[in-house]
């Protein structure tokens, strides 16, 4: 612990020394009598002050939580000697705040442990390392202060607040596994498709007896099979734009992607993630239960990282972009590399949906005529880019924090079917 005298000690000693000097020079006994209480206070306080070793253990009730959750924190402080006053404060990392008391003052008896409870509020998603506990021990009379920071390493995963999605998107091309989407092809299923003539191998239970009685030969009902789909979430992590008091483009992207991922995983779809930015990360499509956690881990790790290493989507493993997958891209459409990658995906024949996480009104014009002009040009360029995507059959919708993602997705729920043969 680092010890230092308080201003009180310096001021009191100066006060006493001055009085004693005046008493010596003047020979007045009363001046000494005035100095005596303060001198006694300093002497006794210093005599009672002892060196102590303070320890603190911190434990959290959880190791993962949702954004906006309150996390109970228990701090156990103990000392080998009497410490009349100890201030205990938790060093709160960025993205957290303390609900209720943040600085505690306790008295520590030798060998006694004091348990303190604090509550942290997880304000931002991500993987956070909690910093430590700051201790400030006051000696008797607050003449000496000892300060120490006890580090502890505790990694806490804060998952983003998910966007609740009810309807979501209808993938235009179902895959081979059974799921909840009615395929356009005929097969075994529940949804009625048509009636055709009986062929060898057809099941008797599918015979449509009404039609058979009216026509010459036997007829059977055919059905549409229920299939699942592949959904790939594309996150543009080249930059985090907007923000301020509202969520930035990256934060919106992560929230939205998490919501869409959970929605499709519940529907037995296979979901994958591509985090495309300074660092290229991906997670191949899968539908297992443990895949939810892997997917959330990738989303938690999505952050803006600068890198000179240029990696295009052509480096992605083939399994990451399965043919016929629906690609849902979250992008502010600012970085040319991300825009180029999206154009590449469209050119390869993937069903692509772009959710613009930087609506035009999120960025205000700089003051002055030139700023206004630049802002108008920028908006025109963005409109042109969106029109270019729209002309190629790629819907682009803007999404801000005020809107529900589900209502934004409802605009493009029924996507046009793209040409087959999308290749990774």
């Amino acid at each position, binding site marked *: *612990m680092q*010890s*230092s*005298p*308080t*201003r009180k*000690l*310096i*001021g*009191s*000693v*100066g*006060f*006493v020394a*001055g*009085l*004693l*000097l005046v*008493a*010596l020079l*003047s*020979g*007045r*006994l*009363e*001046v*000494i*009598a*005035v*100095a*005596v*209480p*303060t*001198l*006694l*206070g*300093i*002497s*006794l*306080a*210093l*005599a009672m002050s002892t*060196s102590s*070793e303070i320890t603190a253990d911190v434990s959290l009730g959880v190791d993962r939580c949702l954004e906006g959750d309150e996390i109970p924190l228990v701090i156990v402080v103990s000392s080998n000697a009497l410490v*009349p*006053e100890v*201030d205990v404060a938790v060093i709160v990392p960025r993205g957290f705040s303390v609900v209720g*008391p943040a*600085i*505690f*003052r*306790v*008295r520590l008896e030798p060998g006694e442990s*004091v348990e303190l409870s604090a509550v942290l509020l997880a304000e931002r998603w991500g993987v956070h390392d909690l910093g430590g506990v700051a201790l400030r021990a006051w*000696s*008797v*009379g*607050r*003449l*000496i202060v000892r300060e120490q920071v006890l580090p502890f390493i505790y990694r806490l995963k804060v998952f983003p607040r998910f966007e609740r999605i009810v309807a979501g998107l209808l993938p235009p091309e179902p895959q081979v596994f059974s799921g909840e989407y009615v395929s356009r092809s005929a097969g075994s299923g529940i949804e009625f498709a048509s009636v055709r003539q009986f062929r060898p191998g057809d099941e008797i239970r599918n015979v449509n007896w009404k039609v058979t009685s009216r026509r010459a030969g036997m007829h059977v009902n055919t059905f549409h099979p229920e299939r699942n789909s592949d959904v790939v979430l594309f996150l543009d992590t080249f930059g985090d734009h907007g923000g301020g008091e509202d969520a930035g483009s990256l934060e919106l992207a992560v929230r939205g992607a998490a919501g869409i991922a959970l929605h499709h995983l519940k529907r037995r779809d296979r979901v994958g993630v591509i985090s495309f930015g300074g660092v290229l990360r991906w997670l191949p499509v899968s539908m297992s239960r443990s895949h939810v956690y892997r997917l959330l881990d990738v989303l938690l790790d999505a952050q803006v990282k600068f890198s000179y290493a240029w990696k295009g989507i052509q480096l992605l493993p083939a399994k990451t972009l399965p043919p016929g997958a629906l690609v849902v891209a979250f992008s502010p459409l600012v970085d040319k590399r991300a825009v180029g990658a999206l154009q590449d995906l469209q050119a390869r024949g993937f069903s692509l949906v772009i959710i613009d996480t930087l609506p035009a009104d999120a960025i205000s014009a700089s003051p002055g005529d030139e700023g206004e002009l630049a802002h108008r040009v920028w908006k025109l360029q963005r409109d042109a880019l969106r029109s270019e995507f729209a002309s190629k059959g790629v819907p682009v919708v803007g999404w801000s924090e005020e809107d529900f993602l589900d209502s934004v997705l409802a605009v493009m729920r029924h996507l046009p079917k793209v040409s087959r043969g999308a290749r990774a």
Partner: protein
Amino acid sequence: MRRWLRVIPSWQRSIATFGIAAGMAGYALGLGASTSIVVFLVLGFIMLAGSLVGLPLQGLGVSCLVGGYVVALFGSGPILDPGAPLIGVGAYLLLELVYEERIRPDWVSPKARRSRAWSPSALAAAGFALSSVVLVLGSTVSFSGPLSVAAGGVVMALLLGAVLWATRSLLAPDQAPRDDR
């Protein structure tokens, strides 16, 4: 049960500070009123007010108030003033009050609160008693001449030296410095 308490709220601290300061000023003015005394007292009040709003004038403010008393004492003649222990206790309590901590805790345990509340009171009572004893004993023994002044100087230097030595020993690092050779 968790209680949201502070040792002494700020407004009560201000009232207590100015109450004690007003008592000391009144006593000094009772001994004798002169321009220099009034100047000392006014300066003391201004500095105490400044210290309450965050200026580092705590010790100077208390010193000015006591300075006013000392000047009044010199003007009152050679008669021994029996109120000196009271002024001493007042000065000690003022020092306790004005050196307010900059960062206040959000929660104070009842034990720490009781400890903090009792220790200055006990020390003030002990200080008053010792100050009175010093005054009574000092009045019975007559010291005069340069030798007694020198002896008094040595005693006082020893007292201050003891305080400084205790402070230094408390500020010594907990661990021995690492030998990097």
